């Protein structure tokens, strides 16, 4: 790590006002058919030692920050797997340790992912007590047939119950709810998706994420597709579903602030709704974040703002062994050059509705009023200039826009 305290890079490459901490909990009761995340069924005996190791790794990570100074944490995100398989007290201990190691912003956002079937009053109380300000529920669908096809361990009704339990436990303290939805699933049709959207809206979450089912090779779905027993979702069907999501959620008062994310609330000066996810914005604005836990990814850029990105070993035993030996459990690392960093910044910044202003675009080597941008505007994919911002139609074709704009 460099010893300069004043960062060299400014502008669109890095947002140094944000610093996140991601914690990964790689345990699940069952594996869903589409899941290729780092998670394991069983391993009950390792769960509590794992929680302790997270706290230990946090110390190692903060020590490694060295001369870069002590940043202020603006968001914490506990993802998985199923984080709520950890006893709430263990989770609270880790979060507490973190607070002891690094200053946290007064309004720090603390998100925990939860599976609807694990949420009971005790858990909800525990989360609130631990300082959690956002809970992300993996709903995926409100059609029981689809949930079964996905291999989800809950039914549609459970989501509403979990939401209500969390609201009750929060009792006036700030607690945002996010619902995750997936479209293009086996067993789903237009009517089923419509019902899922309506049911999600009816629960009244502050935030919603919706994205297309992607078939990864190392999953049950991947094997079924390879064996010809399942068809890949049709491109036009996915486009239809996404279109419906845009329409239903807009009508329900959600702002479509990122390709896969919607939120409510008063708009800030940059157009962002108040209940947008701050932690995810850290990713999209290339803010720094620590990655703690098996398979976790981390980004703490050097002064030039290019990189590196590093990630931990995915295996729990190796993770535990490394941390116990006082070593960061790094598996790999990627150094980025200027071109890659600028390309990343372009791709990530264009995902959100604020996009890039002319100057920021220029700093990334992109002409915001050049022929490529002009053609994209006349195709209705970019909003009228001079900034580079996707229209809602552009969000459908983000990849196309990026490949045409990138130098």
């Amino acid at each position: 790590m460099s010893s300069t305290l004043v960062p060299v890079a400014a502008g669109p490459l890095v947002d140094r006002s944000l610093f996140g901490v991601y914690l990964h909990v790689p345990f699940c009761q069952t594996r869903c058919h589409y899941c290729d995340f780092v998670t394991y069924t069983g391993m009950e005996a390792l769960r509590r030692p794992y929680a302790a190791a997270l706290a230990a790794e946090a110390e190692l990570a903060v020590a490694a920050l060295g001369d870069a100074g002590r940043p202020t944490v603006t968001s914490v995100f506990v993802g998985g797997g199923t984080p709520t398989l950890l006893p709430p007290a263990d989770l609270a201990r880790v979060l507490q340790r973190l607070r002891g190691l690094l200053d946290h912003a007064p309004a720090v956002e603390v998100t925990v992912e939860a599976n609807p079937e694990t949420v009971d009053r005790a858990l909800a109380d525990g989360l609130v007590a631990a300082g959690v300000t956002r809970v992300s529920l993996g709903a995926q669908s409100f059609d029981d047939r689809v949930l079964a096809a996905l291999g989800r361990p809950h039914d549609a009704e459970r989501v509403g119950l979990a939401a209500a339990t969390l609201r009750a436990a929060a009792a006036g303290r700030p607690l945002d709810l996010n619902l995750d939805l997936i479209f293009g699933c086996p067993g789903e049709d237009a009517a089923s998706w419509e019902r899922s959207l309506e049911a999600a809206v009816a629960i009244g979450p502050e935030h919603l994420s919706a994205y297309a089912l992607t078939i990864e090779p190392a999953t049950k779905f991947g094997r079924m597709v390879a064996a010809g027993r399942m068809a890949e979702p049709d491109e036009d069907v996915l486009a239809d579903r996404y279109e419906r999501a845009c329409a239903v959620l807009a009508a329900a008062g959600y702002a479509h602030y990122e390709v896969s994310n919607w939120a409510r609330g008063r708009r800030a000066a940059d157009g962002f709704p108040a209940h947008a996810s701050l932690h995810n914005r850290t990713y999209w604005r290339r803010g720094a974040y620590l990655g703690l836990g098996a398979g976790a990814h981390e980004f703490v850029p050097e002064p030039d703002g290019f990189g590196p990105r590093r990630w931990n070993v995915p295996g729990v035993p190796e993770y535990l062994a490394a941390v116990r030996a006082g070593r960061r459990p790094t598996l790999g690392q990627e150094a980025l050059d200027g071109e890659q960093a600028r390309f990343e910044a372009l791709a990530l910044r264009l995902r959100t509705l604020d996009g890039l202003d002319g100057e920021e675009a220029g700093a990334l080597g992109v002409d915001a009023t050049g022929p490529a941008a002009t053609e994209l505007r006349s195709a209705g994919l970019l909003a009228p200039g001079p900034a580079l911002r996707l229209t809602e139609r552009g969000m459908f074709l983000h990849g196309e826009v990026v490949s045409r704009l990138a130098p």
Partner: protein
Amino acid sequence: MPTELARLRNFCIIAHIDHGKSTLADRLLDLTHAVSERNMRAQYLDKMDLERERGITIKAQAVRLAHTADGVDYVLNLIDTPGHVDFTYEVSRAMAACEGAVLLVDAVQGIEAQTLANLYLALEADLTIIPVINKIDLPAAQPERVAREIEQVVGIPAEDMLRVSAKTGEGVPALLEAIVRRVPPPTGDPDGPTRALIFDSLYDSYRGVIAYVRMVDGSVRKGDRVRMVAAAGVSEAEEVGVFAPEAVATQGLASGEVGYLIPGLKNVAQAKVGDTVTIAGQPSVEPLPGYREPRPMVYAGLYPIEGDDFPDLRDALDRLRLNDAALVYEPETSLALGFGFRCGFLGLLHMEIVRERLEREFDLELITTAPNVAYRVTVTTGATVTVSNPSELPDPGMIERIEEPYVDAMILCPSDHIGAVMELCQSRRGTLQTMEYLSEERVELRYQLPLAEIIFDFFDQLKSRTRGYASLDYEPSGYRAADLVKVDVLLQGEPIDAFSAIVHKDKAYGYGRAMATKLKKLIPRQLYEVPIQATIGSRVIARETITARRKDVLAKCYGGDITRKRKLLERQKEGKKRMKQIGRVEVPQEAFVAALRTDDGDAGR
């Protein structure tokens, strides 16, 4: 020391592919101890990589064999001939260098069209024919039946035909004896003014042009100043020699002998097949008969995928031509494909060989347009123009008449497949000339067909309808007028010249339909809807639409996804670089190449 004419025997082997010519050549090399056991390998004489892979010979080799019979030392020159229909001219010149021909016929397959075609060439050249039935070792061999077939054609009694197995060697010593006894020695004037026939030439990067020559009159010595009559060039004979089977330099070559001459030239076009070699300054002589300029039959556009590679393609073609006098090419431009060359080939095999060599030896990535023939177009002003690029066909309003090249085709097939073959030929606008039974089981059909109908997939269709048993040979037989039209293919209203084709009006609809369907499958969806149309003039004869793309990947993107997503997007961006822009339509190079391929048989011909 020159061998007297009386002890020389010059002969070739006529055989269909796979009938065992190379193996027989191996046996002859063995028996005459031309190659030591240590150095011997199978198909010894097939030198080029391409030949060994395809199992066919395309370059003639001349091998000197020594054989003693009745106490006399004879020199037998085996002149190897190309077997493919594309190279008939080369075959005829190789035969002009011989006095005899071993007609090698497979005891299971019997006579094939190619064998017959080359046999007729040999008879035209007045060669003594020694019929030999090969592969008698196979359990399915039917030498009697085959002998009768041959007798029918050649008139030689079946009992006089030799039976051999090139694999086991059985009967081959008797063949050597027969060559000595039955093939006449060469004739010529050893003391007269020098005349030698170039029956093949190639370019070697170390030695320059090497000419394979058959000395007719006089002699050539190292150091002589030699003159090529048709190519009209004079140079110094750097070296002369024979192949035994490797090249061995000698003081000179005399009348009747066969060997090589290195004339100190850099370009095979200066040592043309069929040309006469003489000595500069000697009294002028009649050139040897039969010389002909190479005549391309099939054309195609060759374009580099990367426009920047055009100079490399040009250099590569220049280098290939050093070794291939039959290859012709001219630069041309395509709106769709950029800068490239319109190349003329002797046939489809020639085209395939050239293409493969360009891609392999010169490391070029190429787009090849569908092969086409040259049309003779008479316009309303009375002038006649040759069109070898379909997109250059004049406006229909200006055309008075279009003529296309025809061929005389000879097909040999089993008699129970006659119906299928006749149906195929009729569907390709063929007219039956004659039908003759060579035996109860084999029929020879002669058809006149437009060359354009053959160059596509005629041969493959013929094979598949006869379960592989039919064989085909053809030769040009002039031009004929026909009802031909140009079909254009348009993308979003813009014609793609690379896909224009001249077809018979009855086939126009089929072609247009097939192209439109193929392109719809191959061209990815764009940001706008893309109509594909096939037209004749301004009339649309087929139509497809590529609907607009509605979405990219709609997945989430969080911390752990970023590297993976970035790589996917980088690939998407890289893909754009390999796009050919046709108007507003982005066509990936792979799609273009696939759309122009002719070996998937679905372009409706």
